[in-house]
């Protein structure tokens, strides 16, 4: 397999959408990332990434859940697709595989210090 090309922010947002499960939309993702990682991401960047991930087929979306705060506007709710799931797993596996091959950072005195 050629592999899924996921950027760092893409991976983060894909995971967050997965965590939020049916409740993922722009602001919710923003908040979740802030709470989980303490990272402040620009809302427009999140939108761009969400749209891009949907174009790539990792996310699917539907409109729903209008609230008063939004001026009666609906949210675009994203959920992770099967391909998205596969992608995130693949990324994780590759990372784990590589990580496992790291030499232990143990106290190795063989270099003769």
């Amino acid at each position, binding site marked *: 397999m050629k592999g899924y090309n996921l950027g760092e922010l893409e991976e983060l947002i894909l995971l967050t959408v997965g965590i939020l499960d049916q409740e993922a*939309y*722009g*602001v919710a993702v*923003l908040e979740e990332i802030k709470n989980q990682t303490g990272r402040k991401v*620009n*809302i*427009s*960047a999140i*939108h*761009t990434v969400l*749209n891009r991930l949907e174009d790539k087929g990792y996310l699917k979306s539907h*409109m729903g859940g*209008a*609230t*008063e*705060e*939004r*001026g009666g*506007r*609906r*949210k*675009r709710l994203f959920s992770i697709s099967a391909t998205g799931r596969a992608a995130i797993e693949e990324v994780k596996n590759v990372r784990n595989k590589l990580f496992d091959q790291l030499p232990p950072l143990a106290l190795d005195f063989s270099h003769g210090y």
Partner: protein
Amino acid sequence: MDTKLKYHPPKWPDRFLEFYCNPSRLEQIQGDAYELFHMNLEERGLRYARFRFLIHVLSFFRWGNIRRSKPSYQTYNHGAMFKNYMKIGWRNLSKQKGTTFISVFGLACAVGCCMVAYLFIAHIWFKGMHQPNKNEIFQLTYTVEEDEGKITYGTVAEPISELIPENLNQVKNQTRILTNFSVLIHNNESFLQRSLYVDSGFMEMFEYRMEYGFPGALNEPDEVILTHQLSEKLFGDTHPIGQEISLVTDGTEKLYKVGGVMADLNDMDMFNFDLLVNIESSHNTSLDLPLKDAWSSELWTFVQLEKGTNPMDLNPGLAMLKERQNQINPEKPYLDLELVAYTDLIYKVDQIERGVRTFLGLAPQIVLGAIATFIMILAVFNYINISILMASRRLKEIGVRKVIGSNKWQLIAQFLSENLLVCLMAIVLGSLLAAFLFLPGFNDIASKNLKIDLFNDKYIWMFLAGMLLFITLVSGLYPAIYITSFKPIHILKGNQQLGSKSVFTSVLLTFQFTLAIISIVAGVAFVQTNYINSNRDWGYESSDKIIVNVPSPEDYTPLKNKFAALASVNEISGSQDYVGNWIREEELIYDEQKYEIGLLNAEANYSEVLDLKLKQGRMFNPALISDTEESILVNQKFLDRLGLSFPLTKKITLDSVGYNVVGVVEDFHTIYFQSLIDPLVIRASPDSTFNYLTLKMSAGTAASSMEEVKKIWHETIPRGLFEGKLQTEVFDHEVKDVQGVSKLILFAAILAVVLAALGLFGLVSLNMNSRIKDFCVRKVFGADLGDLSMKLAKRYLIIWVIASVLGGGLAIFLVSTFLNSFFAFHSGVGLIPLGLGFLVLFLVIVGTVSSQIMKIVKANPARILKAE
């Protein structure tokens, strides 16, 4: 309701978001932005929330979110769509070659005419605009108070140019310019050439392309620069540099060497000249003259400022110069000494006396512009009519396109793009027509040197592009909007009738016919006038007479004696001016009333030499001394103007001397028929004042003796310019002018008729095609040729009648005004031009209709009716 909902996000960013945002994404984006606003409002307060809202709106302004007319992935289809339009357009055009030809040819003729008119008008208004330094060059002008008010002159006192370097330090180059017609002598042949006396700075300010030599040649006082044309004339193929020529100015001859040859001037150049001469070399430099005389000699002075200098900075320096002048010449103080930008000179022609350009010649511009507009209107109307009819065959296509989902503007775009194709062809063809047919012809008529210079003239590109856009929109917009406005259901049901009987088409056709009639009437009336004028009696016998010029008074007697000795010369007489040319006006007093009257000073036998016709009284008698001192002859017009009858009771006072009127001659034309005959007085005067000699030759010998006369003249005056001519030739120049105009108008008339005929042909044939079944049914039922023709022609004949009435009325008014502005003597708009106009148009209608009727005559109704 929650209290926080009292606050709203700021309006303007919100609107901006709605404006730019792609509608499919607007809801989620706006919703999120609102939600964030309220979160921020709770956490950090209103101001912060509003600020963040703005930031968010701005950060959403990304390529992916911006609304476009089409989603981005469809751009490829856009190109395909236009390609498709073009292809359909091309197929449509090539399917109907005849009508396409009519449209393209008509528009191309119009474009060609417009190009010629444009070039002619542009060469006047854009004069000198191709000079690279044009924005830094200024001319010095001054204003004085005169009787008629303030007058600005383009010339300034000559010594000012010497004071410029010390007073105006922003000046980079300066030049004095003096034009002169000087006699150029080379190999014992003399030519009268326009020479421009300039300072060497001239060649640095103005750029001319040199063919040989270099512009610096003018730094040498004894070198001149010739134009290519003059160099060709003088030296032919031999290398011109270093050749010697001599110039005669103010009676003194000076030898020069040719230092350079420049490419020929074109009509865009500000200055007209044949050769450039260093002003220091010949002109009496002001140093030799007393101070006051030096300051009263004036010439054009141009300066070139350093780049980026504001001309206002020179004002203090100019004020000092003005003061200096006013000290020396206190009786004629300058009110103002000013700089006029080189680029404004043309626009200020009326305001500057003695300027570089003295008049703009509006009349020919108007004539040409009007002709071009006429032809353009005709061609555009042709096109509108034909394209409506052509499109009516495509109604089904339009209906289907609409049903599938094209909106109106898409259909209009489709029609306009087809239209663009036609107009593009017309522009290309029109430029070719102009370049190879119209312009050479026009240059010949108007003795101009206009050309289409696609490489150097950026204005012509602008003109062509503007023209393309203009024609496309003007000719295409109405048909496109009209045709696309139908409801598809009507079209597809088949009950949408269109075209053949529309009022609009009739109105356009009427207008076209009217224009055609006016132009035919103008053409015919002009030709008729020329014919009548060429046979008009000049009022005297013009044959067998030669006029020669006398350059200076001391040449008069020797010249006269030598000519008198010639065997073929019967009689000889001197005159100050000659009949056939401009005659000076003088003030005379009769009965204490003042009159401005033409005065011809001549020898006593002049009236007999010229064969003027005596009406009353007697001619001068050269033997009577009283006749050369106190007698005058007058023409009939003189008596009419003053309301007198011969013999007069009182004396006429001229130059405070009283004269008796001894005779009255019949009116005769001293100037061409463009002007009325003016009152004229002929006075016998002493010999020395005469500038011309008139030789009366034995019958039939005038033309053949011309060479001999010229030889004798040159023997007597070796350093002069011979300007002899036959008396019969005096109006040649005017006749040529008038004939040129008449050719131009005739050409326009023919073009107008051809265009109207083509348009009519297109209309009739398209009409015929759509009604051929109708006609065949009639034929089957026994309609004869007359009925059928009448049926087809009726509408056009009605239009012809209306156009005749309209066009006739307009023509009588317009063409008479036009003739009046050209001639004092003309045929007027009589029956012949009007009748011819109506007839030609009638024949055109009959011709086109009968050519179509022939189709039916030949057609087999069975075959046509069978086909479905």
